[in-house]
């Protein structure tokens, strides 16, 4: 249940961005975050944490939109690049383990939609 902690960190980051907007928005409509495939985040738990932590706040009723980033890798042995399927980091071309991750660990706010 680390989704509550992650949601708390999301709210801190979001608030810093939101409070810096001029002129002050009339409200928040949505926030979109990107989650890399390797993160073990349960979407329903994160949505539940969002609903609980934003209730009765300025963000109450705003939508949390989750976008998932697939894992991509580079094989240091044969230079293959492409989508990989965790948990296996084995090159599909040369079959050698050790594919280096180039995408899949993301966890960031991509955009917000404000009411004006």
């Amino acid at each position: 249940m680390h989704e509550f902690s992650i949601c708390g960190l999301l709210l801190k980051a979001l608030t810093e961005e939101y409070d810096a907007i001029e002129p002050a928005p009339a409200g928040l409509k949505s926030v979109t975050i990107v989650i890399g495939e390797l993160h073990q985040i349960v979407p329903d738990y994160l949505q539940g944490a969002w609903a609980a932590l934003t209730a009765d706040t300025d963000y109450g009723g705003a939508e949390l939109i989750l976008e998932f980033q697939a894992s991509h890798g580079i094989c240091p042995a044969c230079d293959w690049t492409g989508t990989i399927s965790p948990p296996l980091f084995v090159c599909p071309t040369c079959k050698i383990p050790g594919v280096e991750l180039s995408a899949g660990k993301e966890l960031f706010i991509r955009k917000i939609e404000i009411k004006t």
Partner: protein
Amino acid sequence: MTTKEIKIYRDLMGANEVWAAKTRVLLAQKRVLMINLIGSPGAGKTSLLEGMGVQLDKKMKFAVLEGDVETTRDAERIREIGVPVSQLLSGGACHLEAKLVHYALQDLDLEHLDLVVVENVGNMVCPAEFDIGEHAKIAVLSVAEGDDKPLKYPLLFQQAKAAVLSKMDLLPYVPFDLPACRKYIQQVNAKLPVFEVSALQQEGLGGFMRWLCELKS
């Protein structure tokens, strides 16, 4: 009502990262290595620390930050072997975060330490998500567990700088496929060094200790 879209691209874990970065600065100033032991409840993390206490004290001065949901029982075990220890109670949280660890570090006599070992809350999922400012996460997996755990918890084994296979003295009595486990670890993280350890029998600790000393230097 009209709406307006604003692109942000901001790291979501930033508030935790601020404290992790402060910890890295503090550790660099004091020249102290910090590792973060992560494994399921009962994996043998505290026993590993007890084993390290017996062997490591001659080579490196170390202290322990003991993370648990409740009780000070593990910290008492560590104190009994003469190693400085602070208990961090997460109060129900499934992991330690950087801010708590940073404050706990300030209570240690870092001037006279070489190594701080953080024993995270027993859990293979949540602690892997959080940077606490450590130099290395260490995955601890006992042979009394499933040999396929590296595949089930890939983030931990991807993030780790080393893996300890603990309770090796139980291997003759449990259906743990050691070669398969090593293969799974390599498939998830080909560069991960693996140390086979029995803390109770004081076997296999030397290799892990040498690796820690190399990491420190």
